[in-house]
Structure formats: structure tokens, C-alpha cells
């Protein structure tokens, strides 16, 4: 929201000195509301000076250009211009080469052989108006003596007239609305000025507003249907209105505050709103009643009731909306936006001016349902003090009477249905201030700060008894007062030290710990950890052949991200496809949650670990992934190895995949991604993925590492090569290789290929035998090997041969 410091000046002291001013804004940003931007108006500052056109002739090579010589006191400079209204002797605002206007630097420019060392400005370029048809004509020398434009070469700013200057010369700060959403009082210059006054320890002067004086009769009947919605309604009628452009100073202020000037009546209501924070609305009487007697109802909208709002949009209302209505029809959405039909226009002669207090929650709900965010909504939804209702009406009437031809034509209607807040009294335990803030604040300062914020207070024993004015709807308990005291006294007074907290022992979060370990293990095996979005779309699911039902997002940011993912597989395959042109072989992995539908309100969230191995040329990617998975198992020191049995489903190849179990519990799947899926994603190469649920892995970790003894006697290594048919599997074979002296069974070679049948696998195992009592005898190992072979032959018959 934009705040005009020249308007703040009407309430409290604002320094003229630029440095002091910026220091103050800095303090304000720290102690009150963050400031997003500071802008100076008019923004020509010292860059624009007054010059006189001494010579003028047509450009030889350009029909529409004039070459001029402009006197700027010390010298004459050449300026080329296209302005049709330039004449000899004209006094003009000039920007010289090297200076700025509207943030743009003016530089020497060559116009077809004629150099130009500056620019003469139009009204628009100066930010003074909309006229851009020619240079702003400040008159000629004869005019100069009358208007006071006496010194050629002096600053333009100094010559634009004192009253005009105080208005157009302004500093506008744009404050961050987000941090004041609890403080309706700060959506006004009145409220912001109070903050400034408090921060700089300067007095705050209330605006003196003359109460309306009227002896006219009451011509208005107001019915309020729902006291909970409207707790105060004030109104008055004004006749003899002539709708026209509002005075320059109002237009200028509104423009600087980012509000478009419309006409004198609307501008005045807006001006009162930015000033005091109370939205007002004016209706054209002739459009809402056939005679001077008016009937107004504040009521709930009827289902499907229609109204065209001021923005010319037709709105279909529901029971969520409240309207201001006449006997027959609604003329505005209460607190949200007025109706087009009763709008003030050039023909308006008589107006009904309304100032009302509405329930913040209900206005917000109403505005949301018709999707309108107006300046009125912005303020109503934050809560507006009930005492402002009449005050704002008084001020608006005062401005109308002063600045227009209008005359009061009714008595003041003021209906209070519900007195909202009596002044709240809060008892603050003085010792609590330091207990919460951790800084000592002199009691005198505490009291002064509150007083300056319009919070009356007195000390009673160990307590501060504070009376909260009704504009401060945000202050509800003692802690709120402590915040006021802390922020204004200044948090810079907190003496930050080395942390001095009581020692507390920290239990390791086992789930987190496993994540960290897994992340490190896979990274050291060559994996790049990725982070993909939790939201995906149906197309990605379809491409991955995953049929799980996914949870939908009601208001997705785009159709690409409208589902909560029930699987990490689509995201990972997609990421592989994006990276395949950067590297020929790589591993990607991620730990993230998947979201599964279930009967509770909240979906079931499972934490999954997924990894993918991609290679343009390496065959059997499956084993690269399996190596990673089994290595994790080893280094996490799990109670049991992963078991691989049963085929996995889509998107894997049937016979190149497996389900994964630990201690009999199913945890996930591993497999090579089928050609159909790879084709869907445009992946050219081999791709294998494992996807496991790691939620319960922390329950399956050995507390200790079990250490085997090492024999003092020499160990014996014996290699055997087995050729087996892929009907059977290596696990079953290995399970049958047992011996009391067998220490390890190590795979040292695997071969598949042209030298053997396609359904055969050759494997070379290194068996290491050890004996704790003695050295092995000569034939002992051979006997053991023979025994192992015969057990294998017995069990696997033709499916196994030895080499």
C-alpha cells in the first residue's frame, strides 16, 4: 500500500532534510512496517532547470525537427526538438545532458547531423499531467515578471508555486501489506502517522473534523436485516452536486497513491478512505428512487440475484453475499463494490453518501465468492473501528462542502445495531516484559511508548493497566502490549551473546539418520541425488504404465502438476530422459514421499528411496542397480539381506525384475524398464530402477556389528566354476553350498554370452575355507569341494554342470 509522507505531515512531523527523512523511513521499516519502495514526486529533483529559447530554425535534413539555442544563464546550448509548439522567447523546463528524468538519463544525441545537448519537457514527462502534445509552456519574458519565473537557469522545482509544490513534492513509500494483515488501523494515513509519531517521539495531532450541521428533515429509512453483518450505518444526502474533475491537489495525491482520479465525488470518498481507513460509497439518488424519500435495506443477497458492479461486470450472487438494496433491487455488494446502475456520473445532481461498519469475516467471504479484491475489501476484512463510521462521513461531507457546489439536503442517519467493543482494559505484569523480550526497558519508556500509541496506561503495583482504544482491534492480551513495547523501544537493544541455553541431550532421529546414510552411500557409488516435484500429471503416469489412483489438487498451478504422486517412478524416468544427452552412463536417486489414497482424511504418506541406472551401451543394467541396493543393505548393517523373489509388474520387463523383501516384508521392486515405457519417454539406452519403501528400515538395523574370529592357521582358497540353466537361480545354488569350515563364498566372475547357451550362466565362485584348530590336510579341501559338487548335482541334476 502506498503512503504519502506529505499527507502524513498533516498529522505529525516529517523531516525535510533528505538524510533525516531516509533514516526515519529506515526506522519505520524496522519498527513498524517493512517498506518495499520509496519514490520521490515529482522525480525531477535538481535535474530540471529553467531555460529560454533564444533561437529557432528548421532542421535542414528533417522536416519535423527544430534546432534551438536555449539560454540557461551561463551559456547557450543547442537542443533539437520535435515539439510543434516551440517558439522564440518561450520559457521552458530543460533537462541537460547527463541529468535524469523519470529515471532515464539524458545523453547527447545526434539528430541527422545536428547535436542535441538536452531535452525540453512536456507536462507528461514532468509527471504533472497527461499532456504530451508539446513542451510545457512556462510563458515568455513578459509573462515571467507576472508569474515569478524570474531566473533563467534556476531549478524548476523552486518555481512551481508554494502550495502546488507542497502537494506535488512528495515522498511516497510503498509498505508491505502482508505484515499488517492484523492491523486494520494501518490501512490509513491516520494510523501510519501515529506510528511515525511514536517512532520519532513527536506529537501526533488528530485531524479536526467539523461535525455535520444540518436542520434538514430525515428522508431516509434504513433497515438492517442482520445485526451481525452491519453494526453501524451512517448516511446523508447532498443536493446541488455538479460532477466534474476534482481539485488538483486531490487528483495529484490520489495519483501518487496509485488511485485513478474519477470525479470530484468519487475522489473525495477515496481520499477520505486513504486518509482515515474507512471506505465510503456515494449513490446517485435519482437512480435509486423516484422521489427524495429513500429506503435502504442492508440484507443478504438472494440466491442467483444479479447485479452489475462498478467494473461493468455482471455478478451472480449467492447467500454468501450481502447487498445494499432499495425496495426493489440491490444497488451494491455491501463492503465489496457498488453497483453500476447507481453510479455517479456527469448528470448526477443529488447523492446518497454512505459510511458503514461491516463484519470483516463476512465481507471477506462475500468478496471471495465473487472474486473481487477492492480497496474497500482490503480494509473491511482487516476490521475497522466502529467509531470511524460517523467520523469518516463527517470528513467527506466537509470536503464536499468545501470543494464542490453541494448542499446538505437531509439529516444525518446514524444507526448502531451492535456496539462492538467497549475500550478493552489489559493488566500487564511488568516483570513479564523482560521475561519475554530478554531486555530491560525503563518503566518510563514503557509507559511513554504505550501513551504515544494512544494506549492510556497507569502503573498499579506490579502491573501496568492499559486501556486499548477501539481502533486497535489487534490488541487482545498482555503479550500484544509487550510486542508494542518491544518493537518501538527497539530490538537492537537486545544484547545478543553466545547461546546460553540449558544443556539438553539430543536423541538421534533414526529415520533421518537412515536417510542421511543412504544418501551418502549412493553418492559414493556414483549416484547424483535429485529432487523432483511432488506433483505430477496423468500423462506421466500413463507413460510409465502406472495405474495407481492419484489424489487430485483442487487448484493446481498448471495441468502439468495436478496430482499428488503415488509413485516416484514417473518423475525419475522423466529426469533420466532429460539427462541422457548430457552423460552416457549415470545413476540418479531420490528419497521422497509418495501419497496414497486411503480411508482417512489424510493420505498415507510413505517415504520411498528410488534409484535409476541409465547407460547408452552397458547391458543388463539390472545388476548395476542391484549392486547399489545390496551395498546399502550391507552398510546400513541391516538384520537381514534383501530377498529377491516374484516378478514385478509394470513398468518393468517381466523377467528382468523382482519384488524385494526383507524379513519377509514386501518393501518394493527392482527391474529393467520395459521398451514400451522407454519409448514413451524417448529414452535411448538401458534403464533399470529400484523403488523401495524405507519407512520401516530403521527397525531392521543391527545394534552391533557381529565380528567373526580370524583363524591363526592358513586359509585355503578354492575357485569353482558352475554352469547353470536360468531355470534355477544362484541363490538356491549358494544356499546349498555349506561346510563347517567354509568362511566365505565370493563371486569372482559371471559370464553370459556366445560361448555358452543363451539360457545358461557361468559363474566362478571363490570359496575360502578356514580352520581354527589346525592346518588343513592335503586332500581335505578337495574332498570338501567334491562333496559340495555332489550335493549340487544331486539337487539340481541336469540344470548344473561344473567346468
Amino acid at each position, binding site marked *: 500500500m502506498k503512503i504519502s509522507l506529505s499527507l502524513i505531515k498533516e498529522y505529525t512531523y516529517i523531516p525535510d532534510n533528505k538524510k533525516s527523512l531516509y533514516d526515519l523511513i529506515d526506522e519505520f*521499516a*524496522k519498527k*513498524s512496517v517493512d517498506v518495499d519502495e520509496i519514490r520521490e514526486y515529482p522525480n525531477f529533483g535538481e535535474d530540471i532547470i529553467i531555460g529560454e529559447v533564444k533561437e529557432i530554425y528548421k532542421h535542414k535534413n528533417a522536416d519535423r525537427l527544430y534546432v534551438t539555442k536555449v539560454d540557461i544563464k551561463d551559456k547557450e546550448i543547442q537542443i533539437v526538438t520535435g515539439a510543434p509548439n516551440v517558439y522564440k522567447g518561450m520559457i521552458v523546463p530543460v533537462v541537460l545532458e547527463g541529468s535524469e528524468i523519470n529515471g532515464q538519463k539524458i545523453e547527447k544525441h545526434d539528430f541527422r547531423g545536428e547535436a542535441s545537448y538536452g531535452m525540453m519537457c512536456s507536462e507528461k514527462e514532468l509527471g504533472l499531467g497527461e499532456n504530451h502534445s508539446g513542451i510545457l509552456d512556462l510563458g515568455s519574458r513578459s509573462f515571467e515578471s507576472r508569474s515569478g519565473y524570474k531566473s533563467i537557469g534556476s531549478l524548476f522545482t523552486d518555481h512551481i508555486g508554494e502550495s502546488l509544490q507542497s502537494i506535488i513534492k512528495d515522498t511516497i513509500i510503498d509498505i508491505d501489506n*502482508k*505484515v499488517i*494483515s*492484523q*492491523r486494520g488501523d494501518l490501512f490509513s494515513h491516520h494510523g501510519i502517522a501515529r506510528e511515525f509519531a511514536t517512532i520519532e517521539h513527536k506529537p501526533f495531532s488528530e485531524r479536526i473534523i467539523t461535525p455535520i450541521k444540518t436542520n434538514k428533515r430525515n428522508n431516509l429509512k434504513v433497515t438492517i436485516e442482520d445485526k451481525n453483518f452491519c453494526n453501524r450505518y451512517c448516511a446523508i444526502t447532498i443536493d446541488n452536486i455538479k460532477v466534474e474533475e476534482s481539485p488538483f491537489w486531490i487528483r495529484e495525491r490520489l495519483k501518487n497513491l496509485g488511485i485513478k482520479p474519477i470525479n470530484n465525488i468519487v475522489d473525495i470518498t477515496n481520499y477520505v478512505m486513504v486518509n482515515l481507513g474507512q471506505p465510503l460509497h456515494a449513490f446517485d439518488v435519482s437512480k435509486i428512487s423516484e422521489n427524495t424519500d429513500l429506503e435502504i435495506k442492508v440484507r443478504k443477497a438472494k440466491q442467483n440475484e444479479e447485479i452489475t458492479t462498478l467494473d461493468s461486470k455482471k455478478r451472480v450472487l449467492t447467500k454468501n453475499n450481502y447487498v445494499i438494496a432499495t425496495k426493489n433491487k440491490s444497488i451494491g455488494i455491501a463492503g465489496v463494490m457498488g453497483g453500476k446502475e447507481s453510479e455517479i456520473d456527469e448528470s448526477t445532481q443529488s447523492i446518497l453518501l454512505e459510511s458503514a461498519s461491516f463484519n470483516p469475516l463476512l465481507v*471477506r467471504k462475500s468478496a471471495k465468492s465473487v472474486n473481487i479484491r477492492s480497496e474497500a475489501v482490503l480494509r473491511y476484512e482487516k476490521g475497522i473501528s466502529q467509531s470511524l463510521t460517523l467520523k469518516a462521513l463527517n470528513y467527506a461531507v466537509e470536503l464536499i462542502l468545501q470543494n464542490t457546489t453541494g448542499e446538505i439536503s437531509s439529516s444525518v442517519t446514524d444507526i448502531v445495531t451492535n456496539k462492538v467493543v467497549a475500550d478493552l482494559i489489559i493488566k500487564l505484569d511488568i516483570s513479564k516484559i523482560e*521475561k519475554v*523480550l*530478554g531486555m530491560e526497558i525503563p518503566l518510563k519508556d514503557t509507559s511513554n511508548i504505550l501513551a504515544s500509541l494512544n494506549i492510556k496506561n497507569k502503573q498499579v503495583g506490579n502491573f501496568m493497566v492499559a486501556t486499548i482504544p477501539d481502533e486497535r482491534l489487534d490488541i487482545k*492480551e498482555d*503479550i500484544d502490549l509487550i510486542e508494542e513495547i518491544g518493537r518501538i523501544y527497539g530490538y537492537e537493544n537486545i544484547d*545478543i551473546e*553466545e*547461546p*546460553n*541455553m*540449558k544443556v*539438553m541431550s*539430543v536423541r538421534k*532421529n533414526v529415520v533421518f539418520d537412515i536417510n542421511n546414510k543412504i*544418501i*551418502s552411500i*549412493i553418492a559414493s*557409488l*556414483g549416484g*547424483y*541425488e535429485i529432487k523432483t516435484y*511432488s*506433483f505430477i500429471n496423468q500423462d506421466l503416469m500413463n507413460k510409465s504404465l502406472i495405474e495407481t489412483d492419484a489424489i*487430485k*489438487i*483442487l487448484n493446481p*498451478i498448471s495441468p502439468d*502438476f495436478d496430482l499428488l504422486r503415488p509413485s516416484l517412478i514417473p518423475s525419475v524416468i522423466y529426469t533420466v530422459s*532429460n539427462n541422457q544427452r*548430457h552423460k552416457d552412463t549415470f*545413476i540418479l536417486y531420490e528419497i521422497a514421499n509418495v*501419497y496414497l489414497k486411503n480411508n482417512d*482424511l*489424510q493420505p498415507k504418506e510413505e517415504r520411498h528411496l528410488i534409484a535409476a541406472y541409465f547407460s547408452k551401451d552397458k547391458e543388463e543394467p*539390472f*545388476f*548395476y542397480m542391484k*549392486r547399489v541396493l*545390496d551395498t546399502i543393505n550391507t552398510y546400513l548393517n541391516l538384520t537381514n539381506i534383501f530377498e*529377491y523373489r516374484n516378478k514385478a509388474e509394470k513398468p518393468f*520387463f517381466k523377467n*528382468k525384475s523382482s519384488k524385494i523383501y526383507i524379513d519377509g516384508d514386501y518393501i518394493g521392486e527392482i527391474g529393467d524398464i*520395459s*521398451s514400451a515405457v522407454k519409448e514413451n519417454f524417448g529414452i535411448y539406452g538401458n534403464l533399470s530402477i529400484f523403488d523401495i519403501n524405507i519407512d520401516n528400515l530403521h527397525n531392521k538395523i543391527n545394534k552391533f556389528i557381529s565380528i567373526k574370529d580370524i583363524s591363526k592357521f592358513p586359509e585355503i582358497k578354492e575357485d569353482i566354476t558352475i554352469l547353470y540353466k*536360468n531355470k534355477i*537361480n*544362484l541363490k538356491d545354488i*549358494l544356499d546349498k553350498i555349506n561346510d563347517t569350515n567354509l568362511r566365505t563364498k*565370493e563371486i*569372482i566372475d559371471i559370464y553370459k554370452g556366445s560361448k555358452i547357451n543363451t*539360457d545358461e550362466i557361468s559363474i566362478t565362485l571363490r570359496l575360502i575355507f578356514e580352520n581354527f584348530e589346525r592346518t588343513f590336510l592335503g586332500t581335505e579341501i578337495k574332498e570338501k569341494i567334491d562333496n559340495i559338487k555332489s550335493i549340487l548335482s544331486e539337487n539340481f541334476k541336469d540344470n548344473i554342470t561344473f567346468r
Partner: protein
Amino acid sequence: MENIKRDVEKIWKTSIDSIETLGSLEDVKKFYSTNLGKNSNLSTILKSISKLTVTERKEVGQFANQVKTDISNSLKQKEDKLKQALYDKEDSEIIDTTIPGSQLNIGKDLNIGSIHPISAMIKLIEDTFAVYGFEIAEGPEIETDWFCFQALNIPIGHPARDMQDTFYIKEDELLPRTHTSSVQIRTMQEHTPPIRIIAPGKVYRNENSDPRHSFMFYQFEGLVIDESSNLKDLASVLQGALKKIFNDDSIKLRIRNSYFPFTEPSIEIDCSCIFCSMKGCNVCSYKGWLELLGAGMVHPQVLRNVNIDPNKYQGFAFGTGIERLVMIKDRINDTRLFYENDIRFLSQFKNI
């Protein structure tokens, strides 16, 4: 005209015949480019009909297009058949999935990988705050309105809901959490003070992506509840922690007033710029300060909501975006890089 029709007919017959004999997907591709592509016989013939009369042209044109569609359909059928055969063949290939992976002598050619910078920062945060007695806590990402808003003193219809653009699964009931503050509530409901936790995790906001915003990002939240911890303790702990996180002992903090419905007082914490010692540089936008965290004293209403007595207990909470910390520390200027997962970006984080 008849000649042309006959030519087209001939192409039709031979094409259908030769489609039958295609043996691989490669052949299908080749066939397409020679027989249906821009420079195929059929295209050449179609070009020549411009010499005919209008009615003739219409007749031949229609016929040729029919032929073209028919050939394309046959080719598509053949392609599907070949694909299916390939899938079947691939499905019939068997590997022994029981070969123990930990003993395989493969994959050694891969370079060492990398840990995602966000994970690395979370670990750094975890380790740093552990020194001050903070434990890691977590909560669900898809939260109820109660945990994400209501218990945090943001009732339904409260304007503060506009501070965060929320995705909804069910309006005013279920949503991807907009902040990790929901974990505060879960922790306080389950544990009695003293409480000291750090809660890192994903959060979601319905705002368009740009260099500084992403609809998914990471936050971490800190919470301390005991009988005495105050704003000074908060500032002191954070200053100590930030010194470690940014590896800079000269760090100073600045505290500004702010507003969050679940803390009172609420503050913003800035830290002196670690790159320019507050002289002003482009990292801090020449302000000398880096905006880092939102924080404050836990609002008594929040304590009451989780049945903790605010007259006995008090404490503080703080939180910020994890990407923001990484971006400052590693001087990354676009938050989208974290989720694009480009290996060329990821492989630079050699901090395993």
C-alpha cells in the same frame, strides 16, 4: 488420367506386399521414407496431377489419398506387430535376479556422485542445531487445515491466509502444507515441555515459478518451549548457528518487527552480509544485510490450542527457506535449478 490411376494402383499392390515382408522396426522406418515420404513415388505422382482437369484431378486425388491412408494403416499395423514381437522377445529374456549385488564387480567406472545441495544444507542445519540440543522432528506433507492453520491462530476466513497461496485437496480441510510450522503443533501435542526441535521439510505454495519462487520448496522450522526462553535466547542461538552454517564468526544480526499470526512478538531477522562485511555488494542488494528468517515468541493462543499453559511455559519459533540459505552460501541465483535436476548442475556439489 487412367495411366496415373494405374500407376497408383500398382504402387498400392506392391506396397501392401512388401509391408508383409518387413522384418524389423528399422525396416519400417526405411519403408516409410521411401514409400510415403516427401520424395516417394506416390508424392511424385500426386505432384503430376496438376496437368489434369479439375474433375480428373479430384478423382485421382481422392483415390491416391485413399491409397496413401491404406498403406499407412497397414504399415502402422505391421509396426505394432513388430513392436509386440520385440516386447515379447524381451519379455522372454530371463536374468537371474538372485545374483548378490554387493559382490558384483561392476559399476566401478562411475565417477563419485553428489548429494543434492538441499540435502547437504539440511544435514548442516541438523548438525549445527544438535549442538544446542535441538532434535529433528517431522510431520506429514499433506496436512489438515487444523495443523497448518487453525491451531496456528489462523482461523478459517482470516486475512492472514492470504499471506500464503494455498493449494487445496479439500477446501478448508486438507492441503499440501504451506509451511513447516504444522510440525510445531504436532510436536507440542505429542510432547510436554521442555521442547527443542528442528523440523525441515517440503512445503507448497500456489505461486508461479521464477528465479526466486517455486511452488515446492524446503523450509526448516525451529521451536523451543520451556519456562524461560525469550527473544534474547532466540537471537543468541540463531547468531551462533548462523556463524556455523555460513562458516563466518563475524556475523551479526538485525531484528525487525514483523507479523505472523502464530508468534507474538513476531520478528524478521537479517544477518550481516557474509560477502561484503556490510559494505554493500550485489548479493545483499547493496544493503549490507541479508534477509534470512522469520521468527518470534510462540503466541499464547497457540500454546492454549495444544493444551500447554502459557502462564507457565513460553518459547520461540523460527523458520526460513532452505533454498535461500543454499543460494546465499553457494551464490546460486535461480531457485529453479534445484528442481531441474540437470547433472551438469548437480555434479558440482562435491561435498559428500
